[in-house]
């Protein structure tokens, strides 16, 4: 019984982290699906989302507003707007001019952008990590009094529900809306979509904006969950999310969701049963192994190299 409780606790923790990874991973996978580049600066956009949310929360608290749902919604909206604008601007400045050049050029440009954004926030907000107020506390406890207690906090439930809403909204958007259909068309064949009168530049911008908005949601959620943010906050999370995207098959949206969950669980099992320090090693090793043995990921389509 104890073991089972401990296991379920790790599972819950893993699914919580994993669902936020999935939110970030969508940004990677959509961009990769459409223009075939790794948006290295995506982790930084997520970090900026977290910072904006924190600024909004602190600002509202200073104004004396204490009604929780209002605070959360305003923080979420602010984070999404700033991050999406950032995503749009990054694409415009660093990626559009180099689109279609040799593969390494956009990637190096993206790395430069990532360093730039990291230091932008570092200079503006300092390098120290800043505490994120725990707005949602408390939760359910399971298990007998003296043994191991499994807990499911309200925060974790919030993360699940928010992620679920975002994923559903995204799926509906991609499958039903006009822009979503155009997104799918562009990811299948950019040139053909262009010929058929789709404004591909606009669709590519839209992809960046959507990815950034979801990353901002993840930024708010994970900021509250971990309880602090710092300018390097986005780097590792971005790598993890990229791993999740690759795991699920890069370019595939359901794959990103699945990959995120699997990665989150794998990580929390490692820290639960082995050691917390090695959880990053596990996820990077997982990334290397997948790329070596199944580069298309779980749900990805094999890529045929044409001459």
């Amino acid at each position: 019984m104890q073991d089972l409780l401990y296991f379920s606790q790790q599972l819950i923790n893993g699914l919580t982290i994993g669902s936020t990874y999935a939110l970030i991973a969508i940004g990677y996978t959509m961009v990769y699906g459409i223009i075939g580049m790794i948006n290295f600066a995506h982790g930084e956009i997520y970090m900026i989302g977290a910072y904006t949310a924190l600024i909004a929360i602190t600002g509202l608290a200073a104004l004396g507003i204490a009604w929780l749902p209002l605070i959360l919604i305003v923080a979420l909206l602010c984070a999404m707007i700033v991050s999406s604008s950032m995503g749009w601007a990054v694409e415009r400045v660093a990626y559009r001019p180099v689109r279609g050049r040799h593969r390494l050029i956009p990637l190096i440009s993206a790395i430069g952008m990532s360093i730039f954004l990291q230091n932008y926030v570092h200079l503006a907000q300092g390098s120290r990590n800043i505490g994120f107020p725990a707005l949602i506390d408390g939760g359910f406890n399971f298990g007998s009094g003296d043994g191991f207690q499994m807990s499911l906090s309200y925060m974790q439930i919030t993360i699940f529900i928010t992620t679920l809403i975002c994923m559903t909204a995204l799926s509906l958007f991609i499958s039903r809306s006009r822009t979503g259909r155009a997104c799918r068309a562009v990811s299948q064949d950019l040139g053909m979509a262009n010929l058929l009168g789709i404004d591909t530049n606009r669709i590519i911008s839209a992809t960046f904006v959507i990815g950034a908005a979801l990353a901002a949601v993840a930024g708010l959620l994970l900021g509250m969950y971990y309880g602090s943010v710092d300018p390097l906050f986005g780097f590792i999370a971005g790598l993890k999310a990229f791993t999740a995207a690759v795991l699920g098959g890069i370019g595939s949206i359901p794959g990103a969701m699945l990959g995120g969950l699997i990665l989150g669980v794998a990580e929390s099992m490692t820290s639960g049963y082995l050691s917390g320090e090695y959880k990053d090693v596990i996820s990077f090793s997982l990334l290397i192994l997948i790329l070596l043995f199944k580069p298309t990921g779980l749900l990805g389509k094999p890529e045929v190299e044409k001459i």
Partner: protein
Amino acid sequence: MAANNFRHALFCAFITLIISYPIIGFNLEAQGINVTLTGADATTIVMVLLAAVIVFLFQMFREQIMGGLKSIPHPLPQSNKEPMAENRRAKIESWVLTGIVVLALFWPFFVSRGSVDLATLVLIYVMLALGLNVVVGLAGLLDLGYVAFYAVGAYTFALLSQYTGISFWLALPIGALLAALFGLVLGFPVLRLRGDYLAIVTLGFGEIIRILLNNWTTLTGGPNGIGGIPDPTLFGMEFGRRVKEEGNTSFHETFGIAYSGEHKVIFLYLIALVLAVFTALVIRRFMRMPVGRAWEALREDEIAARSLGLSRTAVKLSAFTIGAFFAGFAGTVFASKQGFISPESFVFLESAIILAIVVLGGMGSQIGVVLAAIAVTILPELAREFSEYRMLIFGAAMVLMMVWRPQGLMPMRRIHIELKRQE
């Protein structure tokens, strides 16, 4: 058109405000567990507004500005002079380079200790950048975990000296060979991957090495690092005030001169200089050997190169291993220079800096890479008040270089014959 332009410009200016004002205009301050928000001072806000105005004006008059920039005559007008014959140019170039190296040999005796120390660091970066240049510039493999091999070299020396008391001169080849071995072992499976996947895998590998160094406390001392790494000796002569090891003599006593801490610094500088020149010469040779041509061929067109019978794995692996070898070299020198190493010195940012050097200098171009290494290391020292902006400028420079001049400041020149144009 004008109205459209205006709308676009307004939109861009608005976006500029959105992405800069909330982050720059408000400062979060942590006091204990409480976080307070303060507005930035007036100058910052004016700067933000100014940025938005500039973006607006630029977008509004984009075509005019771009047209104006194009009409400015090129600062170096194409001379009508006959270009120098290739072999004559090469001869002059090699004389100039030899002159610079000779100058560099005598230079440390006339300057302060601090600048010699800095110059040693520059030379370490030169070695690293030359090594990465083989991997990224010549073979076209984006290696984001290059710092891992640097770490292998440094830790090999540190650990061996701690446990077996090995000397610098023995550790130098061992560190380099071990780093090369790491490159070989890592490269073998991953080189099948396509460019951008390779980049991420090498990045993951670099992080794994760093995390292992950080957590394997019993062997590496974890975050505390390893100290007491010995200085190099000159034929058994030590540079310390007192001889530490049995059988060694001290440099200043042998030559009967007064002890000075500068001897050691200058000696290290000279070692780094010799090694950097060695690195440059060896890689220069490689570039002209069949394997060097194969690197470039594979970078330019993998399918064509393979259909001509080049073994993809062997060619890529050779580039990867050689790059790793020189990183190991640099790592050993670094460990000896610092006397203390910790995982702090081998973070991803270090890989990014080395990559930035290669990119700024011009991928594949040795002279460009050397100049960029010097510039990137020395400029922040000269402009200390801007040192906190160093990485910001780095990032921006990388983006701008990719957008405007992806071939780098001093692009690689291929030895080639030009046909004379028939009028």
